[in-house]
């Protein structure tokens, strides 16, 4: 388990052996809104999902952290989008939700690019997602594949 501090402007990552902390981090992870922003309120530590991901990226078995990930939120087998799109939606659900509600923004543009929405359809894409926001984000607990599936259906 790794904890991270920043000192002197540069990054220091504390790697502490503590399986109980690790367990908590996993319990708190889950999917849906907020899960990738700041997981660990429970133990009051500076440990977070993001940081866990950071260190996994380095020492874990992932290939040099080129994709991050949340335990329990792995990509299901059959989904109509590529790995990058799935990972993006999973890891950026909060920013995406806001941009969809507002009708514009960098997260929305990134999603449109990943879904290969043609340039002249991007306005309509943004409008239809905004109009259907309540159908896409119903409880805020939906995992990424559900959100992505709804987005794809809404966007037609």
């Amino acid at each position, binding site marked *: 388990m790794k904890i991270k501090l920043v000192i*002197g*402007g540069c990054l*220091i990552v504390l790697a502490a052996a503590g399986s109980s902390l690790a367990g908590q981090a996993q319990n708190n992870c889950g999917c849906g809104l907020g899960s990738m922003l700041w997981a660990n309120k429970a133990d009051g530590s500076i440990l977070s999902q993001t940081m866990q991901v950071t260190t996994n990226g380095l020492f874990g078995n992932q290939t040099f952290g*080129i994709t991050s990930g949340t335990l329990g939120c792995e990509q299901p087998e059959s989904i109509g989008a590529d790995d990058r799109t799935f990972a993006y939606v999973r890891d*950026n659900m909060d920013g995406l*939700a806001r941009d969809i509600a507002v009708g514009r923004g960098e*997260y929305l543009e990134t999603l449109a690019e*990943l879904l290969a929405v043609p340039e002249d359809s991007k306005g309509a894409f943004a409008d239809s997602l905004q109009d259907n926001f309540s159908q896409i*984000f119903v409880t*805020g607990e939906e995992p990424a594949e559900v959100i992505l599936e709804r987005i794809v259906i809404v966007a037609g």
Partner: protein
Amino acid sequence: MQQRAVQLKLHEQRYWRVLLHYRKQGDGWESQIDDPDFFIALNGKTNPRDELIATVAALFGEPTVGAENPRCRYVARRAWLREQLGLPEWTTDAGECPDFEQALRWVDPQTATLVFPGSYANSPASMFGHTLLNFNGPYQSKQLAHAANYSAFTDETNGFAYAIKGITGSYPGYYSLLPYYDKIKEYNGLERRDIWEYPLRLTPEETRKMFLHLWELRNIYSDYYFFDENCSYNLLFLLEAARPDLRLTEQRPLWVMPVDTVRLVDRHDLIAEASYRPSVATLLNRQTAGLDARETVIAQKLAGGELRGRDLDAMGLGAEGEIRALEVAATAIELKFIKKDLSLADYRRRYLEILKARSTLGAGGADRHSGQKPIRPDHGHGSSRLGLGLGYTESRWVQELSFRPVNHGLLDPEDGYLPGSQIELGAFALRFNEEKRQIQLKRFQLVDIVSLAPVNAFDAPVSWLVRAGLRRQTLPEGRHLVSYLGTGGGYAWQGRWGLGYLLLETEGLYARYLKNDFAIGGGASAGYLARLGANWRMHAKVRQIRYLLGERDWSGSVELGLNLRIDRRNSLSAEVARRVDFDSWATEGMLFWYRYW
């Protein structure tokens, strides 16, 4: 093959030295990398020639069995050696090195960007910022880049040991590569730091070379030093691997500030422009500035959960007003959650409710990321400052020479720096004493940090200061050097012209000339820090401390400072103070010329 490589003197070539991080050490060479796994020859750290021979043998000799195939690990050496030895170009899609090939395909490096997350006012730990290097793939969205980062790893939990070890290089530093959007969440979000992005003038071929070298460095450590061989310095090796003509790591100063590496890279003409990515906290401040009083109250209630999104219609704000209030409330909720003032369940419920209400209002509102771009941090004044002063006090003229290695004071020109923050480390001032005809130490500031973060409608951050050092001051028996340690905490407010603040302070003094050698007390300070026009700054301050333990007495001061910015390298300051220390009053006026670099 080995013979041929040696005959060609490849080990004496610049690129070999870059790839192995060799630096001249006396008569020979030594690699900056400390991990033995990085070298193929046993004496590779200090012998470029033996390392070359061993590398050629490992890459082009009989394939090795077990462990990680060196051909798939030392990919930059491999690509370069093939070129130098006249071998056909290495194709990276042969399926020989699945991990590497997959990473290369996934990141697909085309161009690179230097990324500088700045400092955050209220986090002493992120004082100097940080640097990352982004590999941009074929996407328009900057978020889809991958960020290379160099950082130290440790299991130390004792803050003191940790600082000492960090300074003396007892921690291993590693490179990592992660999706840039994770870094955006980390810096813009969790740490509330503004990010600057500087696209680099590197070709796709150069960017690719840099990526190959990064691959070689994965899971390889070097001793990490806070001040010089730190996060910023180590990224420079990657840039040299991209373009070996660049000589970035050779002239290493005593300390490497992240912003100075940006300046260094800029001096080599690699930076064309800069873009700005405000943090969640900055966004909230900017968005709130666009609200009127009533909208602000409603946004506060929405963020606090006292008002539901669907009840907004009854408030009579009009569509545009509702949009503004809802969008501010959404940002405020994000910030509350990041600060852990909100549980996950509450966050989800409120955030979703606000966003649902917003989604029914269609287009409109201001782009959250529009707004003025502040001055680039690398365009601020230099990190070091020399001061020459002339003044008058106690019926005599005084001359002062001061030097501050790091980095910014409240009165210095603010462009490029975080408003209301001061970080002064290791500064000292010397005065020429006419009577004694000798040079005396006036003060030595080990640390002097002030963070003034204004309260706003959604957040009331604590402003604080901490300082320690030596200063020459009036004591009950004449003027002497005193050791001091002071702390303070309070609040700051954004006024029309600048920041006002009120801090409660404690201070301890230690000197032989005090009763029982010490004095400890408490008091308060208040001040106003204003920007007057484009180039003038003013800082007015009053302070009083009452010493209750040891020597019982009091000291107080009224100070006024004015600074005129001349250009990026020069400013003039006028500082007037009237102070009382242990029953002795004095008035002093000084004029300074400051030079920054």
